[in-house]
């Protein structure tokens, strides 16, 4: 088997998938499997060069910069009370926002996947708004909504619920930017759900709640977790929408991303870099978890 089988297969039409699986009589190490299409060197060369120049080399700058730092100073920077307070806020608010979005995003996905009602298409399109609307615009819009004289603030503030310039405001902003993730992760799975399984569960005597909990939820769970993790990861690094509504009080409403910026403004490059490393390592760990979850979701979809 070699290139010539690919050609005979191509002649057969249907089964002409590239399938460049050479029967390795001798197991030779090959970087690239043979095929008929050209441009491998050019496209891969450009891809790797561009990736290195724009992403890999600049990102490694952060880690190299940290290595020039004194270890005790590094630890001191990333564990100072103000920084720790910002971790707590960033993690806590991101987690809570992702949790809120998991519940309501699931309902939105459910409604979009299963029901018909007027305005559904507009609603479906609108879900992606946080992806499309610049974060700064979202930030000032939310602030004006919840300010004491804003559309919502004028009713909430007299009740003693202050959103603007408090931690609650951070939560609101992070909920906004994380909204599409759960909906868009769960919606395709719910659409693909086979109605027959539900009917089978029902005919075997399960009530609606049992069918939901025992049949639907387990199928959707990996996608739901993926959506949660994506929203959480996005919220952790968020900057633009939060800084307007949070008021940025040290120890109280200061998020980690803002601390990096304020260190930079004081020309404390080492300090900014140290905090950035903590954030980067967290994000990369989350990325690994998300990848694993997505692989599981795909298995569910294919099964």
């Amino acid at each position, binding site marked *: 088997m070699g290139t010539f089988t690919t050609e005979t297969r191509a002649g057969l039409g249907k089964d002409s998938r590239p399938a*460049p699986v050479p029967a390795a009589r001798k197991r030779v190490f090959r970087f690239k499997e043979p095929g008929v299409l050209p441009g*491998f060197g050019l496209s891969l060369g450009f891809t790797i060069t561009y990736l290195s120049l724009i992403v890999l080399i600049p990102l490694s700058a952060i880690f190299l910069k940290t290595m020039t730092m004194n270890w005790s100073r590094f630890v001191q920077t990333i564990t100072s009370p103000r920084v720790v307070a910002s971790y707590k806020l960033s993690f806590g608010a991101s987690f809570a926002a992702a949790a809120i979005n998991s519940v309501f995003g699931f309902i939105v996905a459910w409604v979009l996947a299963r029901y018909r009602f007027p305005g559904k298409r507009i609603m479906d399109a609108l879900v992606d708004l946080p992806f499309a*609307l610049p974060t700064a*615009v979202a930030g000032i819009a939310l602030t004006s909504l919840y300010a004491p004289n804003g559309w919502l603030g004028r009713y909430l503030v007299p009740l003693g619920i202050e959103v603007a310039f408090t931690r609650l405001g951070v939560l609101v902003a992070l909920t906004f930017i994380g909204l599409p993730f759960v909906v868009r992760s769960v919606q395709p799975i719910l659409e693909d759900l086979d109605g027959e399984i539900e009917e089978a569960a029902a005919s075997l005597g399960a009530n609606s709640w049992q069918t939901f909990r025992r049949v639907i939820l387990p199928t959707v769970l990996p996608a739901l977790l993926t959506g949660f993790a994506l929203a959480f990861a996005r919220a952790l690094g968020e900057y633009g929408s939060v800084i307007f509504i949070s008021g940025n009080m040290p120890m109280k409403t200061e998020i980690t991303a803002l601390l990096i*910026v304020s260190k930079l403004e004081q020309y404390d490059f080492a300090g900014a870099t140290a905090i950035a490393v903590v954030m980067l390592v967290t994000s990369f760990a989350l990325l690994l978890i998300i990848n694993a979850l997505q692989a599981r979701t795909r298995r569910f979809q294919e099964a």
Partner: protein
Amino acid sequence: MIANPKTRAPRGLESVYARCVLVLIALLYLTLFLVLPLASVFAEAFEKGWQTYLDSVHTPDALSAIRLTLLATGVAVTMNLLFGLAAAWAITRFSFKGKNLLTTLIDLPLAVSPVISGLIFVLLFGLHGWCGRWLDDHDIRIVFAVPGIVLATIFVTFPFVARELIPFMQARGSEEEEAARVLGAGGWTTFFRITLPNIRWSLLYGVILCSARAMGEFGAVSVVSGHIRGETNTLPLYVEILYNEYNFTAAFAAASLLSVVAIVTLAAKKLIEWKVESGGGQA
């Protein structure tokens, strides 16, 4: 309403009452978090009437911010488009060692906080950075200048086109290109006559998402820009400056321009999705 074969007639799981409650909850949630903020942008922008709106959009600073935003978006989208095509071609048309790693690395910028995306370029090209001294000697400014803004925008929108193209080209397979090659078409002819027409919707989709993000990027650009009015302000940064000066009407007027872009983006995105769906139905 398009008849979606997957959305079957009502299923027996929940009562009509429960359905109405769920739809109401969903509507309320989206209204609270999406509709109200969007509406408030326009309400605030037009609070003092059309004339004030036009005046605040038509200032030299606003125009230069718009120009810089368009420039950065244009460069970033073009570069990432070329990259997306090359990466998708390499990844979906060949099998080679390390492909999965490469795919993961392409997504990396999505996991990086916007602020850190700006920070890395300050560390590299800033006055105290690695290349800072050399750049300063040669009088080249990258950080706190236009090149830095363009670079940060490219970084932040890096994976957008590639992410759309890779799954699409993977699913489409390479039979048609192989057939063209076997029939004697050259490499570029195959690409321009077979591949490009096939992937045009997916490509456009990626470009739309990429431009929307490029125009709206705030955190990364904010860190590298230095906020020099009329020089290194993009539209989102200009919004911030006006807002911090308590010039709310002007801030929301500039924000409303970005919101219009966002709405157009959403509409275009949905149109392409429906187009591809109905096209896929016929095939």
